[in-house]
C-alpha cells in the first residue's frame, strides 16, 4: 500500500522536477483548500498536487497535517504551533491569533499517503539526517518510475554516505529497466551492498518463473549470481564478526566473574562457592544506588551507575572480608570443608536477599547513555551496554594487574600464592594478606555484579547461574596469574558463542563443559600452570 502510494507520488514529483525545477513561490491557496475537505480521496489528491507544485513550502504544511496541527479558521488554513498560529500558505505568523482553530483530522489511509509523500520530499531536505532517513526509506521501494527523481537527488547530493545509499536505490530502480546494459550495471552496483534485503531482491533474477528465466539476459543473470555470492560473503563476515563480539562480551563477563575467584583460589587454595552471591551483592548495590538516586537526585538519575561502581565494590568487599574473618579463616588447610562452608554462606546470602528484597527480580534500568548501539554493518549492531561492559572489564583487569604487580599488597599476594610458609618466614603478614586478598576478590565480584545488572536479571538466584561458569574459567586457566583467567574467559566466551550458532545454546554449554572435563585430564593444572617444583600436599 505504502509502496504503491510512494510510486504514485514519485511520479508526480518527477513530473514536477522536470518541468518546474525548484519553485519558490508561496503556495496557491486553492491548492491548500482541498486539504480541509471531508473526503479522503480529495485530501490525497490535494497532498499529491501540493507536493508537486511547491515541495519546499509544502513540507511544513504536510508535516503539520501529519501532526494534527493543521487547522481551519473560517476558510483559511492555519498551522497551530504552540501559542503561535501561522498562515499555511505564506508561513507567516498571524497577529493577533484567530479564535478557535478547528483541527483537520485524517484517517489512516491519508496518513499512509502522507508519510510516503513526506519521505520523498525529505530527499531534498537541507538537513543531512533527514535526507539519510529518507534515502533509507526510498531504497527499498525504488522502481523504474522513480529513476528521474533519484537522478535529480543524486545530482544534488554531496554527502558520500547518502550518495551510496541513493546509488543503491538507483541501481535497484534500474533493475526494471528494459535495457539489459542498464540492468547489468545495476546488478553489479547492488553487489557492493551488504544488506540482506538487497540479496532478497537479486535472488529472483537467478530463478526461473515457470519455464522462462525471470531475467532474460544471461550475462545479467550471471552477474546477479556473482553479486549474490559477494553479498553473502559479506553477510557471513558480519555474522562472524557479530558472534565474535558477543563472544567477547560474554568472555568479559566471565572474566569479571572469574577474576576474583582466581585470586582467592590462587592465594588461599579456597574455592569460594559464595562467589556467585557476591556478584549478586554487587548487582543489588546497583539497584540500591538507582533507588537512592531516584529518591534524592532524580536529575542525575542517568549517572547512578557511576556511583554504583565504588559502592558495589565496597559492599561486596565488606561481605567478603566478613566471610573470611568469621568462617574461612578457621578452616585453613581444609579446602573441602571450606567449599562446603562457603556453600552454606551462599545459601544464607541468597535467603537474606530474598527476605530483604523479595523473591522477585528487581528492575535495574539502563542509563540513557548506555541505550542504543553502533551500527557497524547493516546487519551488525553493537549495543552500547555490551561495549561499555567490555571496556569496563578491561579497566578492571588493568587495575588488577596494577595492584598485583605494582603495589606492596600485590607483591605479598604473589608471594603467598607461590609459597605460603616461606612468605610467612620472611615477614609477610599472611593472615592480613588473606583477608585483604579475599576482600579484593570479593570486591571484583561486586564490580562484576554491577556490570551484570545492566544486561541480566537481578534477583536472589542470579549468582547460581554464574558459579559453574566462573569455576570453569578458573579450572581452564589455571591459578595464580591473570593471563590464564583472561585467555580462558575470552576463549570460552568466543568458543561458546560460535558453537551456539551451530548447535543452539544448551548443547553448546554441554559441549563446553565436556570439553573442559576432557581438557583437565590433559592439563590438570590448567592452561597456564605456575612453573616450579611443588611437593603436593
Amino acid at each position, binding site marked *: 500500500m505504502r509502496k504503491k502510494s510512494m510510486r504514485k507520488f514519485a511520479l508526480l514529483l518527477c513530473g514536477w522536477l522536470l518541468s518546474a525545477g525548484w519553485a519558490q513561490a508561496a503556495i496557491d491557496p486553492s491548492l491548500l483548500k482541498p486539504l480541509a475537505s471531508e473526503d479522503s480521496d480529495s485530501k490525497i489528491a490535494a497532498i499529491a498536487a501540493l507536493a508537486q507544485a511547491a515541495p519546499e513550502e509544502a513540507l511544513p504544511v504536510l508535516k503539520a497535517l501529519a501532526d494534527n496541527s493543521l487547522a481551519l479558521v473560517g476558510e483559511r488554513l492555519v498551522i497551530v504551533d504552540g501559542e503561535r498560529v501561522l498562515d499555511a500558505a505564506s508561513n507567516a505568523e498571524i497577529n493577533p491569533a484567530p479564535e478557535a482553530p478547528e483541527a483537520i483530522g485524517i484517517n489512516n489511509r491519508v496518513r499512509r499517503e502522507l508519510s510516503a509523500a513526506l519521505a520523498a520530499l525529505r530527499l531534498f531536505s537541507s538537513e543531512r539526517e533527514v535526507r539519510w532517513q529518507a534515502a533509507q526509506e526510498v531504497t527499498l521501494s525504488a522502481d523504474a518510475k522513480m529513476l528521474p527523481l533519484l537522478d535529480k537527488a543524486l545530482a544534488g547530493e554531496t554527502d558520500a554516505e547518502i550518495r551510496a545509499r541513493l546509488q543503491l536505490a538507483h541501481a535497484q530502480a534500474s533493475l526494471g529497466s528494459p535495457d539489459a546494459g542498464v540492468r547489468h550495471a545495476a546488478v553489479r552496483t547492488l553487489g557492493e551492498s551488504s544488506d540482506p534485503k538487497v540479496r532478497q531482491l537479486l535472488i529472483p533474477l537467478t530463478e526461473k518463473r515457470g519455464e522462462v528465466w525471470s531475467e532474460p539476459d544471461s550475462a545479467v543473470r550471471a552477474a546477479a549470481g556473482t553479486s549474490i555470492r559477494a553479498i553473502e560473503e559479506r553477510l557471513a563476515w558480519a555474522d562472524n564478526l557479530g558472534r565474535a563480539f558477543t563472544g567477547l562480551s560474554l568472555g568479559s563477563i566471565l572474566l569479571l566473574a572469574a577474576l576474583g575467584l582466581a585470586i582467592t583460589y590462587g592465594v588461599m*587454595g579456597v574455592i569460594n562457592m559464595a562467589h556467585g552471591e557476591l556478584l549478586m551483592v554487587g548487582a543489588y548495590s546497583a539497584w540500591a544506588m538507582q533507588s537512592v538516586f531516584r529518591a534524592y537526585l532524580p536529575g542525575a538519575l542517568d549517572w547512578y551507575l557511576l556511583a554504583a561502581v565504588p559502592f558495589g565494590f565496597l559492599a561486596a568487599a565488606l561481605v567478603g572480608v566478613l566471610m573470611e574473618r568469621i568462617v574461612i579463616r578457621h578452616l585453613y588447610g581444609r579446602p573441602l570443608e571450606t*567449599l562446603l562452608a562457603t*556453600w552454606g*554462606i551462599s545459601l544464607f546470602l541468597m535467603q537474606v536477599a530474598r527476605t530483604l528484597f523479595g523473591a522477585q527480580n528487581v528492575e535495574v534500568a539502563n542509563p540513557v547513555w548506555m541505550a542504543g548501539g553502533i551500527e557497524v554493518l547493516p546487519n551488525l549492531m553493537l549495543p552500547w551496554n555490551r561495549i561499555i561492559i567490555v571496556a569496563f572489564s578491561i579497566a578492571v583487569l588493568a587495575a588488577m594487574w596494577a595492584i598485583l604487580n605494582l603495589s606492596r599488597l600485590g607483591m605479598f599476594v604473589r608471594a603467598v600464592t607461590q609459597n605460603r610458609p616461606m612468605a610467612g618466614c620472611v615477614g609477610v603478614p599472611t593472615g592480613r594478606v588473606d583477608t585483604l586478598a579475599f576482600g579484593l576478590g570479593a570486591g571484583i565480584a561486586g564490580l562484576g555484579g554491577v556490570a551484570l545488572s545492566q544486561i541480566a536479571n537481578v534477583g536472589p538466584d542470579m549468582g547460581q547461574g554464574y558459579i559453574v561458569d566462573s569455576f570453569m574459567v578458573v579450572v581452564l586457566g589455571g591459578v595464580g596469574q591473570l593471563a590464564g583467567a583472561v585467555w580462558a574467559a575470552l576463549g570460552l566466551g568466543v568458543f561458546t558463542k560460535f558453537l551456539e550458532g551451530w548447535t543452539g545454546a544448551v548443547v553448546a554449554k554441554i559441549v563446553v*563443559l565436556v570439553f573442559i*572435563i576432557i581438557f583437565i585430564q590433559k592439563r590438570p593444572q590448567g592452561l597456564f600452570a605456575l612453573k616450579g617444583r611443588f611437593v603436593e600436599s
Partner: protein
Amino acid sequence: MRTPLLVRLGRSFDARSWQLLGLFAAFALIAVPIMHLLLPPEHPLHLSTWFITLIGKILCYAIVAVAMDLIWGYGGILSLGHGLFFALGGYAFGMYLMRQIGRDGSYQSDLPDFMVFLDWQELPWFWVGSDSFVWAALLVLVVPALIAFVFGYFAFRSRIKGVYFSIITQALTYAAMLLFFRNETGFGGNNGFTDFKRILGYSITAPETRVVLFALSALALIGTLLLARTLVISKYGRILTAIRDAESRVMFIGYHPLWYKLFVWTLSAMLCALAGALYVPQVGIINPSEMSVANSIEIAIWVAVGGRGTLIGPVIGAFIVNLAKSWFTVSFPEYWLFFLGTLFIVATLYLPQGVVGLWFSLRARLRRGGDKGAPATRGVGA
C-alpha cells in the same frame, strides 16, 4: 588361613551394632507393615502413607549418604556430582515404570505421553527393552557404573584431586542436567517421568506396594552398611584410608592409587543409583532438577553433619537433615535456607566429626570426668 566370608562378616560389627541392625530390620520389615496395613487409621500407632513415604525416601537418602561417606570419609574424594548417579538410577528405573503405564496414559498410546506430545512415532533406541524389569534393573546399575568408571579412570589417572575434582564433578552433573532438560534427549525434558501406575503389574499407590518398597529400601540400607563395613575393615579399606591421608607416600610404597580410588568411586556411584531406583517409585517422580548442583552438595552435608569416616554417621545425618527439611519447608519455608546454610557452616566449623564425633567426645569426657573427677577444659570439637 583365610577366614570364611560369613565369619568375617559376623566379626565386622560388634555385638551392639548387630543388635541395633537387628532392631532396625525388625522395625522396618515387621513393625512398619503391621502398623501401616493392619492397624486402623484411628489407632494411635497407625503409620500414615505420608510417614511411610517420607521415611522410605530418607532411607534412600541414607544409602546415598553411606555411598558418599565411602568416597569422602574413607577415600578423601569429595564428589559434588553424586546427584547425577542417583538421578541416573532413578531415570533408568523410571523408564521401566513409564512403560508399565501401558495404554493408561492421557493419550492411550503405547509410547509414553511425553513422546506422543513430541510427535515421536517410535521408541528411541535406548528405550528398547525398557519394558523388562530385569533389563531396567541391569541398566540401573550398569549405566551409572560405566559413566563413573570412565570419568573416574581419566580423572584419577591424571591425579585430579581435592577441590579440582569436586568442581569437575559439579560440572559433570550440571552438564547432565542441561542435557536432560532438553526434550530431544528423550527423557521427558523438564517434567521428567511421573504419573506412574504400576510396578511389576501391582498398583504403585497400593499400601502393600508401598510397604514392600519401604522394606526393600531398608534392606538395601542394611546391605549397604554391611558391604561398606566389610570393605572399610578389609585390607583394601586400610589402603584406601592411607591414600586419603598421604597419597604420595602410598605411591612410593608401591601401591597404585588409581585402582583403589576407581573401585570405591564406581561402587559408590552404583549404590547411589540403587538408591535412586528405589526412590523413584516411592516418590512418584524423577526430573532433571535431581541433578542440580545444589542437590549434590546437600548430600555432602548429610555426611558432614552425621560424621565422616563412620558408617552410622551418614545415616544419622541423612535423617537429621531431611527430617528438619520436611519440617521447615512445611512450617517455616522461608527459614529453611537460613537453617541449611547455618548447618553447613556450623558442621564444618564446629563439628568436624559430626554428631557421632560429638557423641563420642561427650561420652569420653563424661567417663574421664567420672574416673578422675577433673573438669574437661577443652571445648567440644575445638
